[in-house]
């Protein structure tokens, strides 16, 4: 009886996706699908107007997300999602601009753009799928690769200290900062909802299992094993000190870390503009 329902059913959320782009390119057990799922759930719960939503992504596995969302979307060059989104948001503040990209794209090649967008408090919502390495290019060491992890370019174990993304975001001035894993998908969804309702620059990091590449090199051959790690190691410590929110083999600090309100760049800019013109009008008359 379950079987017979199969062929006809259409997933209730298929309307949020570009059916003709499905199935997505992601591997078995990849967390990117979970992130998109959570994002879609959030959109659905908020009844977001898809006509006013712009999804921007950079390069990398998760970069394909833009193409999968049934909304205006743009797939930029490597690392440039944020400055592009800056242009979009400033040119039309009515739009809900969400950048969905990876740790390499946002924090290695795009690192400078990230800290400046956060510093300006640009009204952009950033969702980062952190898979701890460069997945699409075959698993090279990246800015978030934990110490001693093995990757195709750190075959003897990584000796570079990884970025603590939530700390970085908080320090750069983000108004909302959270970290969850693909296992905490409910909390992730709630965070995304919160983020979409906030003003200013918001950042959510989702630890995403990359079993095919990162996992394979680090003794976690399946998505279930990586999820198992998340379950074993995760501790929810909301609003604890972001600088202590580490990601190690036996401890993954997750939770919300920052939730403040601050005037966004576009708000301030457009307020200024209208003030200037009031003055101009007075001069004229």
């Amino acid at each position, binding site marked *: 009886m379950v079987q017979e329902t199969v062929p006809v059913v259409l997933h209730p959320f298929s309307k949020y996706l570009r059916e003709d782009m499905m199935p997505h390119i992601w591997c078995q057990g990849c967390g990117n699908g979970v992130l998109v799922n959570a994002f879609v759930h959030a959109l659905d*719960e908020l009844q977001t107007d898809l006509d006013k939503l712009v999804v921007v992504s950079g390069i990398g596995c998760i970069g394909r997300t833009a193409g999968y969302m049934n909304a205006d979307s743009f797939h930029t060059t490597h690392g440039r999602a944020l400055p592009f989104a800056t242009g979009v948001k400033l040119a039309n503040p009515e739009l809900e601009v969400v950048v969905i990209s990876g740790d390499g794209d946002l924090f290695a090649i795009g690192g400078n753009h990230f800290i400046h967008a956060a510093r300006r408090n640009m009204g952009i919502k950033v969702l980062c799928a952190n898979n701890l390495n460069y997945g699409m290019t075959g698993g090279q060491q990246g800015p978030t690769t934990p110490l001693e992890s093995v990757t195709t370019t750190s075959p003897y174990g990584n000796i570079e200290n990884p970025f603590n993304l939530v700390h970085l975001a908080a320090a750069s001035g983000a108004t909302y900062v959270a970290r969850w894993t693909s*296992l*905490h998908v*409910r*909390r992730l*969804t*709630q965070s995304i909802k919160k983020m979409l309702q906030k003003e200013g620059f918001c950042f959510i990091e989702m630890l995403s299992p990359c079993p095919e590449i990162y996992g394979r090199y680090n003794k976690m051959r399946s998505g279930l094993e990586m999820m198992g790690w998340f*379950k074993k190691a*995760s501790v*929810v410590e*909301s609003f604890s000190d972001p600088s202590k929110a580490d990601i190690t083999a036996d401890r993954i600090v997750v*939770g919300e870390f920052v939730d403040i309100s601050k005037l966004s760049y576009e708000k301030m800019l457009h307020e200024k503009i209208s003030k200037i013109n009031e003055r101009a009008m007075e001069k004229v008359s």
Partner: protein
Amino acid sequence: MTEKKESKAKQEEQVRIGVYVCHCGLNIAGSVDCAEVAKYAATLPNVVLAQDNRYTCSDQGQAGIKNDIKEQRLNRVVVASCSPRLHEPTFRKTCEDAGLNKYLFEMANIREHCSWVHLYDKEAGTEKAKDLVKMAVAKAALLEPAVEAEVPITRRALVIGGGVAGIQASLDLADTGYKVYLVEKEPSIGGMMARIDKTFPTMDCSICILAPKMSDAGHHPNIELLTNSEVSEVKGYIGNFHVKVLRKPRYVTKDCSACGECVKVCPIAVPNEFDVGLAVRHGIYTPFAQAVPSTYIIDMNLCLNKDGVIVCDKCIKACDRQAISFETKPVTEEFEVGTIIVATGADVFDPSVLPNYGYGKIPNVITSLEFERLINAGGPSGGHLIRPSDRQIPKRVAFVQCVGSRSEKSGRLYCSNVCCMNTIKDSLLIKEHWPDTEICVFYVDIRAYGKGFEDLYQRAKNAGVVFIRGLPAEIVEDKKTHNVWLIGENTLRKGVYKINADMAILSIGLEARKDSEMIQRLLTLSRNQDGFFLEAHPKLRPVDAATGGVFFAGCAESPKDIKDSVTQASAAAARAGILMAKGHVTVEAITPITFPEKCTACGLCVKVCPYNAISLNKDLKRVEIVEAACGGCGTCAAECNVGALTQKHFTDEQIIAQIDAITENEPEKKIVAFCCNWCSYAGADFAGVSRMQYPPNARIIRTMCSGRVAQRFVERAFARGAATVLVSGCHLGDCHYINANYQTQKRVERLWKKMEQNGLDKQRLQLLWASAAEGEKFASKMREMKTIVDNVKPEDIEKGKKVFAKVLEATKYS
């Protein structure tokens, strides 16, 4: 030391002891020749005055003493009468009134320990009385005046348990103006009373009269309500308790508006504790409609999210106020209080242990508590008394009394006080709703002792409730109709009955809470054999615990109805209030004194002190004592072998003087018994109160704790030829000084070893753990030891004298 000697010397010149032997009507005089004893007393050293009188505790008795102190310049007073646990305070006051320091008073217990236990051997009784007086006089000669240290009292109270008793006590204290921490284990206060439908004898709605009190407690500015919390640690002493409370998370924040939307969506459902499983509740729930606080709670043992991963977020979504937070973690709160009221309540008896009543197997056999929920309009059946099997309203109902009370079978020998009246009330309730229901009550005795109780009993009878004396031997089910057959003997009509009913209600008794032991340990309380907490004195201090600053309210102390619980609660509040109003309390001058010049800084005393009141000052090579923290057990003094430390009012020389007094003549016939003030001495008193007869050869030396009994005391007793020695104290774990009696055990075991090595009969040294309620245990021990005394070989006694001879020198004083 030297100038101390002089001072003692000075005293010795002028020690003037007055001895008063009390007849206590015939209580003592009945089996002791008091005049004879007084005459004997007059012959004792330092005694300048000895007389016997009918009631020494009477006004003129006391007046006489005062007068003599002035006129005869008495500077020591000995009264030979009842137990010091009863009248020592009285006579100490008498002395003080006459300007004599109360620590210069000593008592000989010739009633509980003598006249009452040797009713039929006046001669032996009199001889024993003489010895007891002699011991008292010997100690009295060495008594020294003392001033009591004052300890400040924190003006905050902790109330453990949020039943009606706890609520009442909290409200009383809070209204008096003291801050109260009310700690309740369950998610809501209200306790047992909240589950009851109507109260007897007035038949008013239980929750209706409780709910207002609950919300008062919830909103009172002076009450901090800590629900879903448990006291995890209590340190300190009267007036200065440091309390730790573990607040378990509710996972629902104060923002909860109790709208109940979350409950509608929660996929988890289990039987509801509040309705004894007759209704279901959800994983997120409020215990009952009137719960205080009204904040809901998530049962994390059942919640799908218990592994820390939020699998199900239905409640989160349903909650507009976003009051649900799975992040919350348990927190431990710490605060200081001056007094503690224990109102932890009672459990109900689980009748499924009585197979003959078939509870749990026969669907239509229910308990009186289940009945309360069924008859309650807010209950699962909407107030319709229906029987579980077919949910029909029963035509014939049988009540069975004393289920889990007053029976060997259930192991509950005591009467639970409330069941009779509760059943009578219940029967009337049924009659109110369904007048033509046939009701019969099977009972042993109907105990309608309280105000208005008898009327209610009569009303029930007049309403046609049939009372049959004699409990059913068994209840069997009629498999077809699911009716029940009650079969038993009618002890009035002397005949067997076999009565058919649609439903049987077991009137279950109350029993001590399973977790009482935890509270007992936290507060170093003691419990009677039924497991209920033991008051300091059954008559004169009924709501005080033996531990200073701790009081009882409600069923924690014994089964009670609501009225008594509330009464006791107010009493406890008043008692606590007295302490806090005063703001300070004096601690008995039974703390240690040190002689630094003798101290070797070995640190043994530091190790054994249960209160960490002693610290080692390495630089000065001596120990330092925090008097306020000292509990006064004296185990430090027992541990010190170099005489660098002893306990005030129980000094080595005083105790040795008592030992010597006992062993002066016919030691080979005697038992030198050391009893701790709280349990074994009280046990001996209890044996006396209950007139339990035992051989007269025991001589009891009272110490505050068995931990005070030094090896050298026992050794000296043997060295002086005592036949046997008894060391007795509270049960391990029940020690009033936390764990001091574990030292007692160690020391006795060491002595046994020594006796064995030296080929002595180790039977001669006995160790007894007896609670204040175990009079019989004490008495039988005395009988047992009598036979030992009779069988001790003289050569063994001689050998003992030699083996322990050394100690005589070591413990020589005057």
